[in-house]
């Protein structure tokens, strides 16, 4: 899922002094942790590297290189005639409409699911059947969000056909399940006194939730909703690959028919749209005092400075009419869900999918695809981290603290570098990974490597922005304090700014790794490698029992990597 964020409750506890004497940290333990940390990074990277190099050593597809040349050659000559621009504008409208409706659907699922997941709302022990139902719903939400939206779209297409509802549901279902997780945590993070008091005074559950939980949670929930909308725009572009319309579809069509001038116009459109939506949503979220994406992904939602933005606030009024307009313009109709054909096809699909079966070649094929998926995710993260290390320092405007202000030319140079770096990151993350994959597949033979490259470039854009934003919020006063005791500037920065920055880089990288594993499905569908490719192939030939097996395998891999990443993230903080 694109930019799936989860807010973690900080469960750090303060041990009492007597506990500490028992669990004393020794120098040896610190050194051991560092060695283990190094191995955790180096071993998977080496393993992945040796896995992607094919036996014959052929990586670069020389036949495809001229195509890349053609593509680059057209960079300065995008197609800009009125007819095509009208088509692009139409596609932008469709993309926005799908994203808005998908987000709206995700919020409905999110609020209901959030109440299911929240422990506060369930503070009284309900009867056993209700508890079992809750457990089942929790499991369902985890399963729903472990499947990538593109895979959802593929499954939905086989039931609903190329209906606009496919795009809306493919966003609404996984985003909804993710939102439910976040909202549940939000409810649990609130002071619960008011809610308990109402419940103890005999108020039924629903009014108690409406009066005591929702108002307190609403700024956070609204902020998250706009953040989700940002992600939804990007995901809708991605869904173009299955043909549901909008910018993404036009982009894939133009790429496949090798109309490079159109590709550049569309890429420009995607980047611009993404930039505007980011800006709008960031301003709105700042206005609600719960700010950046970084804060959302780091679970840091307290103590964020409020930045007032009048135009952003007024523009929020457009949300409801905008949703209505989107509804009518796209001609989405829920009747498609209940009509006789859908019901029949769904029944048939479920019937076809069971019982699961192994692909030809048996288990080795499945495990091979799983290992390819993991290797692809590891390499993609390696590339993303390298991009981040190269670009994010320029994209970070550190607070200067009490240091003397730099001279005008220095400041101008720094400002230009900052803006350039931010634009690079924007382009990297706005162009969907499917497009990066199609480009990578022009130059490289199909396999893990082009997939990793495409995913890595895209993830680099996302990770670079998250990391740069979090670096901007690093507390620089320890550095200033060191500089005041006569420590030279660079040394003070390395001593006081690098450790917290590294920690943030590691935390976000681990967290993006989880998402990367899920997103390998995306590049797989356009032909890279791994579970995604196997899934797409078998869907194309309607081998549904095998599809079921592959979905289960993806589920296991995705949940497994999530657990490992969580464990590691907790270890990083210890």
């Amino acid at each position, binding site marked *: 899922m694109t930019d799936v964020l989860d807010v973690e409750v900080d469960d750090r506890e303060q041990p009492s002094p007597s506990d*500490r004497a028992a669990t004393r940290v020794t120098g040896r333990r610190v050194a051991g942790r560092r060695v283990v940390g190094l191995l955790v990074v180096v071993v998977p990277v080496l393993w992945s590297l040796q896995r992607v190099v094919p036996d014959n050593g052929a990586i670069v597809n020389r036949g495809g290189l001229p195509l890349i040349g053609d593509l680059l050659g057209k960079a300065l000559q995008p197609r800009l005639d009125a007819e095509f621009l009208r088509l692009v504008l139409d596609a932008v409208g469709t993309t926005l409409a799908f994203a808005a409706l998908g987000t709206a659907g995700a919020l409905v699922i999110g609020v209901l699911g959030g109440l299911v997941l929240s422990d506060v709302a369930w503070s009284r022990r309900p009867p056993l059947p209700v508890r079992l139902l809750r457990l089942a719903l929790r499991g369902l939400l985890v399963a729903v969000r472990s499947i990538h939206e593109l895979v959802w779209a593929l499954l939905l297409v086989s039931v609903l056909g190329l209906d606009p509802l496919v795009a809306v549901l493919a966003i609404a279902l996984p985003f909804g399940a993710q939102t439910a997780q976040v909202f549940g945590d939000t409810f649990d993070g609130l002071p619960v006194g008011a809610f308990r008091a109402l419940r103890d005074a005999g108020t039924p559950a629903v009014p108690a939730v409406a009066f005591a939980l929702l108002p307190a949670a609403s700024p956070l929930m609204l902020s998250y909703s706009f953040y989700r909308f940002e992600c939804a725009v990007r995901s809708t572009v991605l869904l173009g690959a299955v043909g549901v319309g909008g910018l993404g579809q036009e982009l894939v069509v133009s790429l496949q028919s090798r109309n490079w001038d159109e590709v550049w116009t569309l890429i420009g459109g995607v980047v611009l749209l993404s930039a505007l939506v980011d800006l709008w949503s960031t301003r709105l979220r700042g206005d609600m005092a719960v700010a950046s994406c970084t804060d959302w992904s780091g679970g840091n939602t307290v103590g964020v400075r409020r930045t007032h933005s009048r135009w952003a606030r007024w523009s929020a009024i457009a949300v409801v009419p905008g949703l209505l307009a989107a509804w009518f313009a796209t001609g989405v109709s829920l009747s498609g869900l209940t009509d006789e054909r859908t019901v029949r096809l769904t029944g048939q699909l479920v019937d076809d999918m069971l019982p699961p079966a192994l692909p030809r070649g048996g288990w080795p094929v499945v495990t091979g695809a799983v290992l390819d998926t993991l290797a692809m995710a590891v390499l993609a993260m390696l590339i993303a981290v390298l991009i981040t290390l190269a670009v994010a320092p320029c994209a970070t405007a550190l607070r200067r603290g009490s240091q003397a202000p730099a001279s005008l030319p220095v400041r101008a140079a720094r400002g230009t570098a900052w803006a350039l770096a931010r634009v690079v990151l924007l382009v990297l993350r706005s162009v969907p990974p499917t497009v990066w994959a199609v480009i990578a597949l022009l130059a490289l033979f199909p396999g893990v490597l082009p997939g990793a490259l495409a995913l890595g470039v895209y993830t680099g854009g996302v990770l670079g922005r998250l990391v740069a934003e979090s670096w901007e919020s690093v507390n620089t*006063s320890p550095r*200033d304090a060191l500089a005041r005791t006569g420590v030279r500037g660079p040394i003070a920065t390395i001593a006081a700014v690098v450790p917290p920055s590294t920690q943030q880089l590691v935390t976000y990288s681990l967290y993006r790794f989880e998402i990367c594993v899920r997103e390998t499905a995306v590049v797989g569908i356009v032909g890279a490698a791994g579970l995604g490719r196997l899934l797409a192939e078998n869907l194309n030939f309607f081998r549904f029992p095998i599809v079921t097996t592959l979905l289960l395998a993806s589920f296991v891999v995705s949940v497994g990597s999530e657990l490992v990443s969580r464990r590691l993230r907790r270890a990083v903080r210890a």
Partner: protein
Amino acid sequence: MTSRPVAVRLQGVGRRFGTNPALSGLDLTIRTGERVAVLGASGAGKSTLLALLNGSLQPTEGEVELFGGTTARLRARQRRELQRRVGTISQDLDLIEQVRVLHNVNAGRLGEWGTARSLISLAWPRPDDRACAAVASVGLEWAVHERTERLSGGERQRVAIARLLLQAPELVLADEPVASLDPTRAAEILGLLGAVNPVGTLVVTLHQPLLAREHCTRAIGLRAGRLVFDEPIERLSTEQLDELYARA
């Protein structure tokens, strides 16, 4: 007393923030070895005075001299050498939260270490005798390898004091080090601060005159940015204190 060298001399020093004067017309001489309590209500200019002394603020009027030389118009290297001789504990301690205690304590020596040594120590900090002694003297032997952010507020303050011990400054500045501590802890912390450099100078802002009487040799009172008294501690009178904290 008068024979001791001058540590700090302020001549007609003022500092404005915009049009708002935080300090004005301050003349003050502090000699090596003095223990000076800076008293005054909140907003009287105590923290501004400390910031002028450690060079994080420049005066808008007058001149600040440290150890007999001016602090204005210094080359970068000279300024660093001067700053090494001044150690500060600010109210928020300015510790690097995500690293081990040892790393924070060693940060006190980065000014004296060369680049290579600093970098090695940052990558792989090792507890040497001086660092161990500093940590031990603030009672945190058990915490050398703990992460700084896991310590309690009082323990983190001790880490900051251990860092000062390694810096071994001639002038120690402490901004309200005991603001939220109970009397026993407050006395301990002031004792530790006094021991950072037994022959050096200590300037500490305080809210409790009683503590000033126990731990300091001299008291100066600030009110609305102006010096209202400057007395040896034994001559400090109740009337003077009442006036200092009286509402305008």
